[in-house]
């Protein structure tokens, strides 16, 4: 094996439903992308061909790339897909007697009061797989009804006999007193030693029985699947000679060692969208853009938006898998990445009174937009981008796919005809209406976090983002837009900048007017003890640059929804520190809700410690210029209904660092297209991103 290369390379992988993306970062800051079709039966088959394609670009052999790398980070949509499609283990749900319908009744809510044609969602675990356990603990943690050991044993035996593959246990108030859940855990271990199970207070000790129960059910239900999935990957990688660290990316935008993830596989759910803001935060830092950063990721069918504020990624306790109210709630804290159905494949349609709509239906990848010529007849946003002149039909995916302009026009005529406008005017209208969906999604996240979009910069990734992000940013009056040249694989890039992170929560309820410092500090001790298990394990492998931060979910007494507040210190040793915490709560409340209520006591509920272990950071350098000084062409492009302009067409690999591109212009890359309308200008930064700003208006 060639040992002349310096080690320190990092490989990151995002396993998606269709493609597996690989990013290899070498020690000079070069990022090389590899892509291959996903192979769900054995992940490593597709992964290996993506790795080989990256190795080819580096003119190296796969063993050399593996030998040079000491960190391998793996992100997967496998768990998310299993949950959404219901392709999960046969799981038993054990709950407090009297409350069998926690997963059926959930927390209520529905979108449309007049819609009676949407069926009520089925519970995550069927009612017939739910077992009531005779026991009850109350709000103060006192045992009201002791656990009926005999009957519980009978239930566990039954679970064994009926072929259940996993078991979730979520009892009322297990957060206040875990005694009964622990007893059940002991019984399962002794009666069914091979059955994977999850105890809610261990996984996710938060208040609210539906959220805690849902997280426990989800975690247990994917344990068999994810254990196999991750262990297979590990052994395949080792078989090919990789000896470095294998980490898995997680829901909170960090990564964890494979053993920890196998124990709590729920932490892999939605790790892909969680990595978008990790990438966005880094790209914004590299451009010295601080403050609020909106990170968007737009592909063919979905648009994800997340928020970074002062270097911190927004976390939410409410993540739905599938649609809000009809999907399933994840229940654990997750990066707040909100998805809406909008993308290049979104279909335009007219309702019975002629109002134009775009989406949420999507042509997906198959048949895809009409211009793909794969049988799609309906007009999509991509078809419009083609007709408007944004996309060069001969240079789509770097010229690997020829697009059919006539087919796109025919599809758009199904809209323009009835409206009595030209095809180009219809194309622009569809484009503008589609942008509205994304503008709304961005507004929703900024409103709920108390941020004004005009304070923010946008980092845009995903294959379709460059087409519409600049007009969207302009509508929102954002300060600037950053489009990294590696934008098309935002999640895999995010992993290049991620650290090992693990969180542990505990529920101790106390109020600001009678603050129980001892109980809180004891709970923080408990949190530290369980985090220390991770820290020591990883320190023994050389990852020891660690730090721990603490936060607490709190609300004004009698409010119901919590906001998170950072603790001023690792322990609340003095009244001064408690006062500081209280002040921070008031300040956060004022920022998010524009009011505060100093007369009200504050209730503190869930305490969380986050252990972060720094990994060596990947560097970023500008790509080499392949085609310096190539002739710039122009093309007629539509920037408003009546606004045809000659736009400069620029090949991305011909732009040098610091070069100014003044709109109207289009930058064409092999994987994405960046549209720069009149009034905007772009420069390529030394960190390999296009930075788009507004040209000051001259009266």
């Amino acid at each position, binding site marked *: 094996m060639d040992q002349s290369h310096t080690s320190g390379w990092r490989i990151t992988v995002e396993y998606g439903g269709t493609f597996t993306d690989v990013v290899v970062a070498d020690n000079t800051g070069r990022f090389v992308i590899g892509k291959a079709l996903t192979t769900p039966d054995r992940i490593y088959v597709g992964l290996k061909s993506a790795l080989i394609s990256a190795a080819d670009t580096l003119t190296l052999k796969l063993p050399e790339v593996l030998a040079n790398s000491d960190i391998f980070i793996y992100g997967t949509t496998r768990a998310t897909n299993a949950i959404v499609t219901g392709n999960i283990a046969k799981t038993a749900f054990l709950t407090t007697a009297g409350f069998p319908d926690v997963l059926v009744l959930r927390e*209520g*809510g529905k979108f449309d009061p007049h819609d*009676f044609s949407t069926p*009520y969602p089925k519970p995550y675990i069927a*009612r017939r797989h739910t077992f009531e356990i005779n026991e009850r603990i109350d709000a103060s943690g006192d045992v009201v009804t002791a656990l009926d050991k005999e009957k519980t044993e009978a239930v566990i035996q039954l679970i064994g006999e*009926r072929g259940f593959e996993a078991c979730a246990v979520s009892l009322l*108030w297990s957060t206040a007193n875990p005694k009964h859940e622990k007893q059940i855990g002991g019984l399962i271990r002794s009666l069914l030693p091979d059955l994977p199970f999850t105890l809610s207070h261990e996984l996710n000790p938060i208040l609210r029985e539906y959220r805690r129960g849902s997280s426990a059910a989800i975690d247990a239900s994917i344990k068999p699947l994810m254990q196999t999935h991750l262990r297979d990957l590990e052994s395949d990688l080792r078989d090919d000679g990789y000896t470095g660290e294998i980490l898995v990316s997680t829901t909170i935008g960090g990564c964890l060692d494979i053993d920890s993830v196998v124990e709590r596989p729920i932490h892999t759910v939605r790790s892909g969208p969680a990595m978008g803001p990790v990438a966005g935060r880094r790209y914004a830092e590299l451009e010295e853009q601080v403050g609020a950063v909106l990170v968007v990721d737009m592909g063919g069918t979905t648009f994800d938006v997340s928020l970074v504020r002062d270097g911190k990624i927004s976390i939410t306790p409410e993540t739905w898998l599938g649609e809000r109210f009809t999907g399933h709630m994840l229940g654990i804290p997750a990066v707040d990445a909100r998805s809406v159905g909008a993308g290049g494949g979104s279909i335009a349609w007219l309702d019975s009174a002629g109002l134009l709509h775009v989406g949420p239906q999507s042509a997906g990848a198959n048949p895809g937009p009409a211009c793909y010529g794969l049988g799609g007849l309906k007009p999509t946003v991509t078809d419009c981008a083609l007709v408007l002149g944004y996309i060069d039909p001969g240079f789509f995916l770097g010229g690997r796919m020829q697009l059919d302009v006539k087919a796109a026009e025919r599809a758009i005529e199904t809209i323009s005809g009835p409206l009595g406008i030209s095809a180009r005017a219809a194309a622009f209208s569809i484009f503008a209406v589609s942008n509205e969906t994304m503008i709304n999604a961005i507004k929703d996240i900024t409103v709920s976090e108390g941020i004004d979009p005009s304070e923010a910069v946008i980092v845009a990734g995903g294959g379709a983002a460059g087409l519409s992000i600049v007009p969207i940013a302009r509508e929102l009056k954002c300060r600037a837009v950053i489009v990294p040249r590696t934008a098309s694989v935002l999640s895999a890039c995010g992993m290049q900048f991620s650290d090992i992170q693990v969180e542990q929560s505990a529920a101790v309820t106390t109020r600001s007017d009678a603050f129980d410092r001892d109980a809180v500090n004891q709970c923080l001790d408990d949190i530290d003890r369980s985090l220390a298990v991770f820290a020591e394990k990883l320190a023994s492998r050389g990852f020891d640059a660690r730090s721990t931060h603490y936060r607490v979910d709190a609300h004004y007494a009698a409010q119901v929804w919590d906001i998170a507040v950072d603790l001023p210190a690792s322990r609340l040793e003095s009244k001064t520190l408690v006062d500081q915490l209280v002040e921070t709560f008031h300040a956060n409340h004022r920022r998010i809700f524009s*009011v505060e209520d100093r007369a009200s006591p504050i209730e503190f509920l869930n305490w969380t410690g986050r252990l972060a272990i720094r990994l060596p950071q990947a560097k970023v350098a500008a790509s080499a210029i392949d085609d310096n000084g190539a002739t710039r062409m122009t093309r007629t492009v539509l920037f408003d209904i009546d606004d045809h302009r000659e736009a400069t067409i620029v090949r991305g690999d011909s732009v040098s660092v610091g070069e100014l591109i003044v709109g109207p212009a289009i930058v064409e890359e092999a994987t994405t297209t960046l549209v720069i309308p009149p009034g905007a200008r772009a420069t390529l930064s030394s960190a390999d991103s296009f930075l788009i700003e507004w040209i000051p208006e001259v009266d």
Partner: protein
Amino acid sequence: MDSDRDIPHKEKSLSPMLLAVLANRFDGVVREMTNTMLRTGRSAVINSARDFSCGITTADNELFATAEGLPAHVYGLNLQTAAVCEYHDDIKEGDAYLHNDPYSGNSHPADHTLIVPVFWEGEHLFNVCAKAHQADIGNSIPTTYHAAARDVYEEGALLFPAVRVQRDRETIEDIIRMCQRRIRVPDYWHGDFLSMLGSARTGENRIHDILRKYGKATIKRFATEWFDYSEARMRQAIKKLPAAVIERESFHDPMPPMLPDGIPVRVKLVVDPTVGTIEIDLTSNIDCMNNGLNLSEACSISNSAAGVYNCLPSDIPRNGGSYRCLKLKLRDGSAIGIPRFPHSCSVATTNVSERLLNLVQAALADLGEGYGLAEGGLGMGAGMSVISGRDARHNDHSYVNQLIIGNNGGPASPECDGWVTYGIPVVAGLMYRDSVEINELSYPIHFKEIRLTQDTTGAGFNRGAPGVRITYGPSNHPMTVVFAADAQVNPARGVRGGLDGNVGEMHVVDQYGNRTRAPSVGEIELTKGTWLSGLETSGGGYGDPLLRDPKRVLDDVMERYVSPAYAADVYGVVLKGKIDDETLELDLAATDARRAGMRVSGD
């Protein structure tokens, strides 16, 4: 003449893009107002149960935008802003008005509404409204629903008929002090007041943003076209209905001694597909009653309208435009029509309103197969009662709160089974449910049981959703529980051969397990060790149970919504095997034979 004017109008009409974009922008304004309120509301009624709505009306008081609002709240907003205009001839930018008067457009006194007029270039163009159910409004008893109130004086609510509470964006503190003096939970009220104000001012700012970008002329043009578009959608939908005149009656349960025979609720619908209108005639209803169950004008209108909207495509915008296709006939002085002061409307939004809404949607089922809806489960029984008392855990601090944790099941529709977390017809599933743990933490209450019931739903081709069995009591000091249930005598009706939902009941259970039937409407006190146990109600079925797909019946049996015996008796579905080991399967031959036999004997 009209056609002459139409031509220049057509030329100036908005582009299809602008119509779609602006519709989205105004929806966005209401959504932002809604999110602001959801996040800032102090009382559980707002931030947990979501019992609030936001909307926009035009300056000439047509309902303009209502995204995500509760039907019972939004249709009357235009009446309330009309009251602002009628009572004040000096409205100006920076004003805000508090309105909760059911005699001038509000739903019922517990729904405080904050109204802010929106000006641009000196012209009054819109009003933004934030309406929220309050935790307390200073009634004579600790509930916002006073069913027994003979009149407004016994009811005791403070009434604000479009009272100015801000001028030049400065709050008129006199009003705040009046409310804080009189309302039982002044902090909650004030928190919610600030939340409504914040929401309304947010709405005002966002509308200003839109006006700044597009200009006044375009926005006025948009309002006209948006109303026309909405009207066109509504008219198309009604034109697809068969012509019919339908009269229907139902009864709110008896409430002895006050109303030993219950309350008749009557409607006559005239569906005219040739012009695309539906006339809703409520004039044959009884005179105002000497209790708190009279409907306000807003509730009479909104619940009739909601019954119709429930049966039409759900994406028709709910506004003054689509509203033009509904012709309401209301009688002055009627309990279900226009109330006459001082008859109380304390409970206007729920009990009789639920009956009215159910009645209209079930009446539309008479149009034929595929039309209308069954009736939904109803009544605010144990799971939606108002609890109050003192909390020994917090220095005997007093508390009062409406529980939103029980559940009545939704009605079956032509397309599917009922929605499980339906609640009551007037909220139709929109409200959030409380968490058992959060309730037990926030109030000295202990729950014993909340479970969906078996064999209770209105069977049908599509079945209603089941209600729950709920049992709870105080965890320390005695607890007062106030409720106003229904369907304990008259259940939610099935339609088109679908069966009725179950009859609900409530019992007080003492420490020895003795059960005493509780009144359906009233107030009880529970001491520690005694429990209130409520059987809530399910929705009615749609269509013949013998036509239900046997596979769906099998699934209902596997999931324990239906017992095997009930499957055989009511659905004619014969099963073999066992539920427990999941070997249960259909005996199709026996099912066919049984269903054939039942059809014959049914004839």
